């Protein structure tokens, strides 16, 4: 049923329908509306879960590790500084192969302190072993939570997942969202059946230490699981499409890309703005298209190379910067296109919530046509 609702509320509702048994979270702007809504559900018997109000984010994810290892479906949500505080725990949860789902309301990292959106937080954890999904709008943000549980809990994957959506831009915005019913979700997402768990009837040891004779194979197995996730996402995404009419089988999506000369590559809510800008540029006769990345981990290198094989140039937009290098997506797209002659230029923009408008997208396309890129776009010259 379509409902005009706030992003955070739609996400909380989707999480409720996934029947998490243990929720553990710590409030942080702009994630708070989600955890408040979930607390409300528990307080009103609309969600039968243990809700642990921890003292910080490190404990939030640590409690999820314990809960998941003991055999419960587990959920947390955070952003920015909170995710940074979880850095050590993120690597640990993935290493223990626990399918925890965590919502990330993407926000910039301090200093200087900023509560506004960019994607530096989750991108900075790209090496942690978590699957990473990025939503363009609130419908996608909502749906991806179901998909994430389905993929993460698959016994051939067993990895945790971030569901990322732009803080404020999506989390605090009212949009029409097709709200699923409990019956629908139960049909799509079966009860959690852990591959193994802490159980007195069958004692096992979790989280042992590994010497150099054993450690590399653990990392290799995680990398293999990441790669296997491509097929599992394709299958789970297709099944989602068959049941609810929105197909998420592809890790990337093209928009007016088939005959494009210039391809813009981007992730998250900015894709909506880009699509509008493309429509206008097309009217002006400019052959511009969009490649939207929905899944950043596993990174869809081959898929991207294939989809971009015909274009004349690629402009990659990054709401993050690997300081001293480039935006993370630009680096990885360039790697995906290694060996081709297609020029790839990166544009770092929208950091700390700096607004990105249609005219900015058009200007970036013009710059890429002139071969200019690998820059911070839209800086205020008077401040430098």
């Amino acid at each position, binding site marked *: 049923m379509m409902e005009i609702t706030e992003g955070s509320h739609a996400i909380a509702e989707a999480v409720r329908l996934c029947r998490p048994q*243990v929720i553990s979270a710590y409030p942080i702007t702009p994630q708070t509306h989600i955890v408040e809504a979930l607390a409300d559900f528990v307080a009103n018997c609309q969600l039968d879960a243990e809700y642990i109000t921890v003292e910080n984010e490190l404990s939030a994810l640590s409690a999820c*590790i314990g809960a998941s290892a003991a055999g419960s479906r587990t959920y947390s949500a955070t952003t920015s500084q909170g995710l940074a505080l979880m850095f050590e725990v993120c690597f640990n949860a993935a290493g223990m192969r626990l399918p925890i789902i965590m919502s990330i309301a993407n926000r910039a990292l301090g200093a200087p302190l900023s509560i506004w959106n960019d994607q530096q937080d989750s991108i900075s954890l790209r090496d942690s072993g978590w699957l990473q999904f990025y939503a363009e709008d609130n419908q996608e943000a909502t749906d991806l939570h179901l998909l994430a549980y389905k993929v993460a809990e698959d016994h051939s994957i067993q990895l945790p997942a971030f569901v990322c959506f732009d803080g404020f831009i999506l989390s605090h915005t009212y949009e029409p969202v097709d709200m699923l019913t409990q019956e629908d979700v139960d049909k799509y997402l079966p009860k959690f059946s852990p591959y193994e768990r802490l159980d007195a009837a069958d004692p096992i040891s979790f989280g042992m230490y590994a010497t150099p004779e054993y450690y590399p194979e653990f990392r290799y197995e995680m990398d293999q699981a990441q790669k296997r996730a491509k097929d599992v996402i394709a299958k789970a995404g297709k099944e989602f499409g068959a049941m609810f009419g929105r197909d998420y089988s592809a890790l990337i999506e093209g928009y007016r890309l088939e005959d494009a000369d210039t391809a813009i590559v981007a992730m998250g809510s900015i894709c909506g703005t880009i699509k509008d800008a493309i429509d206008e540029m097309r009217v002006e006769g400019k052959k511009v298209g969009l490649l939207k990345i929905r899944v950043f981990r596993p990174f869809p290198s081959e898929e991207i190379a294939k989809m971009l094989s015909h274009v004349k140039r690629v402009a990659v937009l990054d709401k993050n910067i690997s300081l001293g290098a480039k935006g993370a997506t630009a680096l990885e797209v360039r790697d995906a296109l290694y060996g081709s002659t297609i020029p790839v230029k990166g544009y770092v923009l929208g950091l700390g919530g700096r607004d990105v408008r249609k005219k900015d997208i058009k200007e970036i396309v013009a710059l890429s046509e002139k071969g200019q890129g690998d820059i911070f776009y839209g800086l205020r010259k008077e401040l430098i």
Partner: protein
Amino acid sequence: MTEKTCDLFDCGHRACGGCGAALVARLVTKAAGKDSIFVSSTGCMEVFSTPYPETAWKVPWIHSLFENAAAVASGVEASLKKQGRKEKVVIMAGDGATFDIGMICISGAFERGHDFTYICYDNEAYMNTGIQRSGATPYDASTTTSPAGKCSFGNKRQKKDMPAILAAHGAPYVATTSIAYPADLLQKVEKAIATPGPSYVQVHAPCCTGWGFEGEQTIAIAKLAIETGLWVNYEMIDGKVTKVKKVVRKPVEEYLKTQKRFRHLFKPKRQDAEIAAIQAIADKNAEKFGIDIKLPPKKE
């Protein structure tokens, strides 16, 4: 081939001969029984008991990080509660993980009132990384980060009073015990586990490698700590001290001179003022807990 079994904490682990912490693991698993789930912090015990693919734990066991055992245990407990399971949750952490790096997680977990038992095996320094001082290191102990030297007598601070801190959180059961008194240890751990809510048991566990004594002396040294009043075995129920181990006290010197970590107090020359300062700590303990057994005056 006959299989040799050593309780729920199996033999064949890699602790030093005479390791106090290994004895804590053996006794605590015995007291907890097989229907329990153990959560460990990073530390000596975690490393010597679980080198992949081997484990000494015959109960379910999880280790996540150095600082987060109390938070992981909170999650385990909530998970079991949700599933209607009855296993008991027992945390096993060293003094560094407890007194220092884990304080925030511990404070949060005790404040929330999860039903678990937190065991701190207290060997009074970071042993796994090579004997660095922790908040549990006693006054004047020489460690690799509080070394005795020309202008230092070693660690400048007294032990942090963790039991009091956790009692102040409203923990219904807080106790201290020692590997020198296994019956007392077993009884207190059983009581802690049987008490609903968060319980804390701090176990004095000498470390032959870190303190500098021969492995066969572990129990004797643990006993001397109690007999000199430098360690007190007591029990607190709802914040009130209800039981104290009383002793006929010996001078602290008898304890100090058994260990290399206090050697600088005797060699190259005796440091009377420092020994007196440590004696004052023992005297204060004795007064606070009333541990002294008053002997009748000797007949001439």
